[in-house]
């Protein structure tokens, strides 16, 4: 059986305690993953400052070049898994079809390859060498920055590899990484680390600690800055800690005001992509559509489109839905959805499809798309997210937008209503605003996403200096 070791500042360590991730199709053990005990993590974190000092020895420019090389290695090289072996491994333990894994690979490689653009977008600095000197000028004003911690601890999810693009720039920002991989997606962070090392980044700046919840808590407690991907409960546990950037459910949305709602059918492709891309697993997948008109017609048309999505083989280049690695989870989620359906919330997709939401294909269990037409914004199903292609369509009054939306990671607004634009721009609950026909899935890497990694890792200090420091 395959084995993934712990990486203790780059050094592989095979633990006595192991966990096993199973193949979603065969239900047989597929990979054994060494588990770090809490004390081992604590002990290693005592050396964070040494790892930080190593990265401080490089210029940002050098690290950007290495990230560029890492991009190519990540996509094309044996690390030691070949790219195809990697694709098959991710697919085996997460259920993602190969085409989706490759799409996520491209996304990660894209971030690594365009690291300079990413950093310029995050920092908005005129020159990145200010990160090397710690000081500089912008428009004639002195600027100075300092790192807020010796490393960043990241608790990673298992749902989709795309999220790894969020923390990958930390290395170019001279911040060592302490990663706790998701229990069924240990592959991608391991491969990114290997790609970086092959590109010349010292192995000593990477910690990779598959571990328990307690070990994950130690990673977050023991590092200067942290990032957490998790569900509502996990996010709540750390919500009061300003050191931790939390990535919970996205509740991403598309809104159509009167003009957009009148032409809703023009945006059907965009809605399908926003809801179903990556099998609905991403926090940037649209989970609800809020329209001021034609709600029922829009929901019906969307249901007819999404009902065409069918399970297919993992190798199918057109695969559009992924099975769940654990069939019981699929059944539980579906039961949860059903329990909240009533006369005011109807699954039109199930009706069009004429079959259950839970489907079994070649021994694997899938959650097929659902389009819930909800008659009231107060209904429990109006604003939910489930991690499969699921969307609610809610009709609201124009004046209710955007206050009725609540926390929204990505909001695509389909309207020319400039007053509504202003209200959206002023809304503090929207993480990313797309004005116009832009899929919620489309990420622009020169924009901060879910918090600004630079602001998270660095802080600005007051700074003054005279030309002659000592007379």
């Amino acid at each position: 059986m395959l084995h993934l070791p712990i990486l203790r500042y780059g050094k592989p360590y095979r633990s006595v305690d192991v966990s096993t991730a199973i193949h979603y199709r065969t239900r047989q053990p597929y990979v054994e993953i060494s588990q770090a005990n809490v004390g081992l993590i604590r002990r290693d974190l005592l050396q964070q400052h040494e790892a930080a000092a190593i990265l401080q020895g490089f210029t940002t420019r050098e690290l950007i070049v290495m990230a560029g090389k890492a991009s190519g290695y990540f996509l094309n090289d044996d690390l030691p898994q070949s790219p195809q072996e990697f694709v098959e491994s991710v697919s085996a333990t997460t259920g993602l079809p190969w085409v989706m894994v490759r799409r996520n690979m491209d996304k990660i490689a894209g971030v690594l390859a365009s690291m300079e653009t990413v950093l310029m977008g995050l920092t908005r600095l005129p020159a990145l060498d200010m990160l090397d000197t710690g000081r500089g000028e912008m428009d004639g004003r002195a600027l100075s920055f300092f790192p807020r911690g010796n490393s960043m601890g990241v608790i990673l999810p298992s749902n989709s590899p795309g999220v790894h693009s969020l923390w990958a720039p930390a290395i170019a920002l001279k911040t060592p990484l302490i990663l706790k991989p998701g229990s069924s997606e240990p592959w991608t962070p391991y491969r990114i680390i290997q790609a970086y090392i092959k590109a010349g980044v010292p192995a000593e700046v990477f910690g990779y600690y598959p571990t328990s919840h307690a070990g994950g808590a130690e990673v977050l407690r023991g590092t200067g800055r942290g990032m957490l991907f998790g569900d509502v409960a996990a996010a709540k546990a750390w919500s009061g800690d300003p050191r931790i950037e939390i990535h919970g459910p996205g509740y991403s949305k598309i809104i159509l005001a009167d003009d957009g709602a009148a032409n809703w059918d023009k945006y059907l492709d965009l809605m399908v992509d926003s809801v179903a891309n990556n099998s609905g697993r991403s926090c940037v997948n649209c989970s609800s559509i809020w329209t001021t008109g034609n709600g029922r017609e829009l929901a019906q048309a969307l249901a007819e489109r999404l009902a065409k999505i069918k399970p297919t083989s993992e190798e199918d280049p057109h695969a559009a839905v992924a099975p769940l690695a654990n069939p019981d989870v699929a059944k539980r989620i579906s039961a949860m959805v059903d329990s909240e359906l009533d006369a005011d919330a109807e699954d039109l997709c199930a009706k069009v499809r004429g079959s259950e939401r839970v489907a079994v294909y070649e021994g694997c269990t899938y959650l097929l798309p659902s389009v819930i037409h909800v008659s009231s914004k107060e209904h429990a199903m109006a604003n939910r997210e489930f991690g499969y292609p699921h969307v609610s369509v809610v009709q609201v009054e124009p004046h209710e937008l955007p206050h009725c939306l609540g926390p929204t990671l990505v909001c695509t607004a389909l309207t020319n209503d400039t007053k509504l634009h202003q209200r959206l721009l002023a809304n503090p609950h929207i993480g990313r605003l797309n004005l116009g026909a832009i899929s919620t899935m489309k990420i622009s890497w020169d924009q901060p996403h879910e918090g600004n990694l630079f602001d998270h890792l660095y802080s600005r200090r007051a700074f003054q200096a005279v030309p002659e420091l000592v007379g």
Partner: protein
Amino acid sequence: MVMSTATQPDLFARVNANKERLDAHVREIVQWHFNPETGCPFWLNWAQEAGWDPRKEVSSYEDLAKFGNFSDDELRGGPVRRWIPKGLAHRPAYVFETGGSTGLPKSRVQMDDFRIDYENFSETLPDESFPKGSDWLMLGPSGPRRLRLAVEHLAQHRGGIAFSVDLDPRWVIKLIKRGQLQEAELYKQHCVDQALTILRSHEVKCMFTTPKLLEALCEKINLEKVGVKGVFCGGTEMTPQFHRFAVEELLGPNVYFAPTYGNTLMGLATHRAPEPKDNWAIIYYPPCPRALLEVVDFDDATKVVGYGETGRVRLTTLTKETFIPRFLERDECEREAPCDQYPWDGVRNVRPFSRFQKSVVEGVY
């Protein structure tokens, strides 16, 4: 996996001899506890209500099955004098309490058991690592814990003096339950600071501590460099990985690591010297005949599982001070075969009982 106990003829004979010794001990203990002249009120009342006389019907260890499984609720609350055998009523008594991590603590009244248990345990400690006459640090729970006095007695029994710290594990549990993890961490550091003060100002060569406190202490100090030669560790679960980590990284090759499994009700199960084939598994043997550990089927606690198989730990305590037949612990493990050093059943890799829904907050202890 089924392992045979009879891998060597002499071991087989020793297992049988031990069985005879155990049965004789069971008869002696049952006679004592159910004799109206010497028994404690709890068991004398129990026998009256049960309508049978254990003195007549129990002649072997297996016969203890007639008692069914002991409920630990019997040990919660007072009056604690119901547990004092009449035959020992003239002796000064101590009352010790369990952790209190699952509600009202269980109590055990003792006179000398803690001393006897730890004197027996002392025999298993290598003198080169726990030198006779050297002083000890007790970095563990204070208050109503048996461990506190027991370790002090162990030190005294070996000719040393035990230094100790103030440590209230129940406060830590409250902090954790309230979500005040930072406060819990600070309290742990407070305990470690006390230990550091002792280690830096006295010549301590031996110590007891818990796994978490050992980790925290070793973040601050190199125990070998301050002269510690042996660490006796217990109190909470130890995984094989922790075992390896403690030996390889926390202590190093020159400090002896003695993991133990014990509690207020049992006493102390000592570990068998590790062998490479064990892959850092921690294998404990109870202090037979004073206490026995069995591994029983999760769904049928009357059935002992096969060697190497997993089940729930069942404890039987058989001393003149305490009789507790067939108590189901909150732990699970694999059943281990007798060995040369211990010709009776042991337990491997003890860990919290996985079927309990309610998690137990262990804190620093």
